[in-house]
């Protein structure tokens, strides 16, 4: 009872947030809507028994990345989105997007894996322990991990170089 209730609430919140992201004309509002989506997803991760990922989702995404967005918006004091000549490709693009949405949703719903249960009798109800995750991350995926750290370093340098005042 409770999981279904939670799922429905969170899913509704997430979708509402996504729609709001599109609807809002104030970038900050879009950002807030996205934060809402992320938090809802974090709760869903908890439901799916991945608490670590959920926490990381909030800390990194909602707590750092989105804060960065908000910060930039404040810094540039970006006003209301201006209406310019309407791109002719926006409508077909949107239709295509909807098509993609429906398509993927349809196939996923029909897919075999979709039948599996997220929780309940025949589902692995135990939640993933952070220890197992780190074991896997630092044994099997060590090289990707290191590569990612290098990537982060490069990104930091790049951001610094880009945003620096030329003097």
């Amino acid at each position, binding site marked *: 009872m409770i999981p279904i209730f939670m799922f429905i609430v969170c899913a509704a919140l997430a979708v509402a947030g996504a729609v709001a992201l599109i609807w809002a004309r104030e970038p900050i*509002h879009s950002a807030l809507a996205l934060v809402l989506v992320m938090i809802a997803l974090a709760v869903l991760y908890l439901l799916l028994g991945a608490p670590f990922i959920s926490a990381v989702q*909030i800390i990194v995404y909602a707590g750092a990345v989105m804060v960065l967005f908000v910060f930039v918006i404040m810094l540039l004091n970006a006003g209301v989105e201006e209406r310019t000549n309407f791109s002719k490709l926006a409508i077909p693009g949107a239709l295509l997007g909807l098509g993609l949405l429906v398509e993927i949703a349809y196939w996923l719903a029909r897919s075999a894996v979709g039948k599996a249960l997220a929780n309940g009798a025949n589902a692995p109800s135990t939640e993933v322990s*952070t220890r197992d995750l780190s074991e896997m991350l630092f044994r099997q995926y060590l090289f990707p991990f290191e590569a990612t750290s290098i990537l982060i370093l490069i990104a930091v340098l790049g951001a610094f170089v880009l945003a620096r005042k030329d003097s």
Partner: protein
Amino acid sequence: MEFISQHPVLVAAVVKIAVLLFIVMTALAYLTWLERKAIAHIQSRWGPYNVGAHGLLQPLADGIKFLFKEDVTPPAADKLAYILAPFLALSLGLSAIALIPFGPPSRVFPNGQQMFSVVDLNIGLLLLFAITSMGVYGVALAGWSSNSKYPLLGGLRSSAQMISYEVSLTISVVGVVLLAGTLNFNELIGAQSGYFHLMRVIPRWFIFPQIVGFLCYLTSAIAETNRVPFDLPEAETELVAGFHTEYSAFKFAMFFMAEYANMITVSCLATVLFLGGWLSPFPDTGIWHYQNYLPGAGLLALAVYCAWNTVSEMRGIARLQLGVVTLLAGGGGLICLYPPIAAAIQGPFWFTTKILAILFFYIWMRATLPRFRYDQLMSFGWKFVLPVSLANLVITALMILVWPHVRHG
């Protein structure tokens, strides 16, 4: 009804949350009183004195004042964000506390619910950081939505500051996590039980192996909660009142409470991670069993002091009020002397004591230190605290690699 009977967990959680909320709110209120008095005495003033004996009713008065003031919303403000910001700030500040265990998990209700913690999560620490990391939004949104320059500047400053120090805050505690090998608060505290080998008097609190981490944590925590000497966001002399300049009445009060709630949260975290949480510094062997009576004794002592003070100095209504305090303290003290209760409240007692110590440190700082300049703040955060905490982390990891037995628990 049958829903309640089906979900005892839910019910117990709700009840505990309610109680905790009440306690924390009161604590917030009287923390402001404590701060004002302490600073006043440090600066050899009286501080609040007239509203109630020793200004004991001052917080109440403030609360009422905030409630009844006019709530101004600037016309140019962005309504949604303007209203959202304070709620966000306060709710996050309070909800973080819900993760803290105030007493040993062994203390349980008949229905098997832990007595002193709302939830006992495996990733408690992570979740706490998740919540605190969201705290930036309150400040940032407030600053932006007021649509006026001082708040914007304050908001920018404080969000930058909080992002910066959040990094070192997080990294400074990883050393502890490495030593304890868990993210669960109770296990973290359990890992600190016992004593170091040399003459068995120093408790195995993480503050001793992780002193560097502790200092880094304390610094970052002060910056994270925008307290002196890092209170740039509401630097009165520069930005009027920083991000909440445009706020008034209860919204302002909410920011105010949020700040103190954050203080309490970080103090709790410091206690849990470095000061052994609800563990007593003394062993409970032999004669040390009498430490169970410390809370009661303390309260009785307070009662005695209040009584003497009442008789000697108070006049009129104030004497009545202080008398009430005396009676409360005395009664509480007597109850606490009842052995089972005395044993039960050991954890909360020590926990509260440690928190109070840290909070007093906060206040002390505020009373003594001047404010940093902004660039100093930033360079200090990025060029000193962060590298030091990183070095601490690396060294800790290496030590664990070399001598695995340094790990606790």
